[in-house]
């Protein structure tokens, strides 16, 4: 193990690099991520008094109140671009549904009987739809909370409950997403930063996609 060489140097000589995400895809992904991060951290400052200190990092409570909604609007806009690009690829097929039923096996690295994954595996697809739904709820309820002085009471009473619930769902999804994309699946992060993966990584994690690419 001590002789481990950095994957990037080693693969450059012995392995084929496969483009995983185009520059456009990576740009929009990170635009979504930054807007999400800003909205999350400023939102957490208002979620709990124990996290209000976060507002100090972002310019104080009043600034956070004024800009958090704009962070949300940016997130929604960027997500809409990402949605247009990916929503067809994110549709769940029969294999995906079987995959989701066996997701517990995937979690413990027992891939026996697990259907092969395409460009996105069923977990990634599920995350996409989850974030799209909770993001829509956050946007709608956020618009209500933005202008309390003109919004009807009933909408405000519903929104103060739905907005944080959707936020907890989104942030929960993010925690899993970040863990999977960094520590849990080595090589995945480079796919979203530098844009490429090794052929072995592709063959192992997204075999259906890998075969498609080979055929082309």
């Amino acid at each position: 193990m001590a002789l481990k060489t950095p994957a990037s140097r080693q693969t450059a000589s012995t392995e084929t690099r496969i483009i995983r995400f185009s520059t456009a895809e990576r740009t929009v992904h990170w635009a979504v991520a930054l807007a999400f991060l800003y909205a999350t951290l400023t939102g957490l400052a208002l979620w709990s008094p124990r996290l209000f200190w976060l507002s100090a990092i972002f310019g104080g409570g009043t600034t956070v109140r004024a800009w958090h909604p704009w962070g949300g609007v940016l997130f929604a806009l960027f997500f809409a671009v990402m949605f247009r690009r990916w929503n067809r690829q994110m549709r769940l097929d029969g294999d995906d549904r079987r995959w989701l039923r066996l997701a517990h096996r995937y979690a413990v690295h027992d891939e026996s009987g697990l259907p092969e994954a395409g460009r996105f595996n069923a977990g990634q697809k599920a995350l996409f739809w989850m974030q799209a739904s909770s993001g829509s709820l956050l946007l709608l309820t956020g618009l209500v909370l933005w202008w309390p002085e003109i919004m009807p009471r009933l909408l405000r009473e519903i929104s103060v409950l739905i907005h944080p619930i959707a936020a907890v769902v989104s942030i929960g999804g993010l925690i899993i997403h970040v863990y999977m994309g960094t520590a849990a699946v080595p090589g995945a992060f480079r796919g979203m930063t530098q844009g490429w993966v090794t052929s072995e990584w592709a063959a192992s994690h997204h075999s259906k996609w890998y075969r498609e690419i080979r055929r082309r």
Partner: protein
Amino acid sequence: MTTGPDLKAISATPGGAAATTRSHTVAKLIDTTTCIGCKACEVACQEWNNQQFTIGNFAGTYQTLPDLTHSFWNLIKFNESEQDGQPVWLMAKYQCMHCVDPGCLRACPAPGAIVQNANGIVDFNQDQCIGCGYCMTGCPFDVPKLNPITKKVHKCTLCTDRVSVGLEPACIKACPTNCLSFGTREDLLRKAETRVDALKEDGRPQAGIYNPEGVGGTHVIYVLAQADQPEKYGLPKDPRIPWTVALWKGPLKWAGNALLLGGILGAFLHYLRYGPKDSGKPADGID
């Protein structure tokens, strides 16, 4: 704020407020049966608090404005209705109720923006206010109003500046019929009961006290000739902190925190127990 009056509750502050030393709480009593609708209390409030008044449109009623505003904290509501073929004209001064369990304070995310003094007065600190408007949703009386320019909420302070130096609130001072009185909450509740008894003897069987239990009682107490129908006076029938606000600021907060912390902890434990998912081929990353 440590130099201010003793506090009973502070918004968005873990650990709550300092110990209280006062045993008496103050209150305002509004005996609607002796109100003549003179609006002296409205003027006194504007004068003492140095508020600008913007004239609205005449809407065919004696009422000065349709609702409270960020710079108009004391409004006599004039309500016309009919009973047994007779017109009924009711007037009731409307302002912050200074709830014992204030929904505004519970909803507020800004530490110290809303405080409840030991004497029962609920007060906004505009310096700490971030302008989110959650208090407007938390308040079952629709009292707090946002100043659209400064993005700060305002409402009746129960003249805490006057009360803290031993004066009565400006509205009380101005009332010519003594329909308004100020004192300890205990005394005023007793006074209200006496007045209600007198009204009942006087042929007003529906007379009663408005001190809604849904918000733990209030520090602004009414005597109503028709206490069975407070909505006729423009007062909510059974005001409560909206259940969504209570759920959001109560169990949901804990469930959400547990879920998020559990998620992070779970990811760590998963990594320690199962490690990363490698590509299944020894060549990947290993010489």
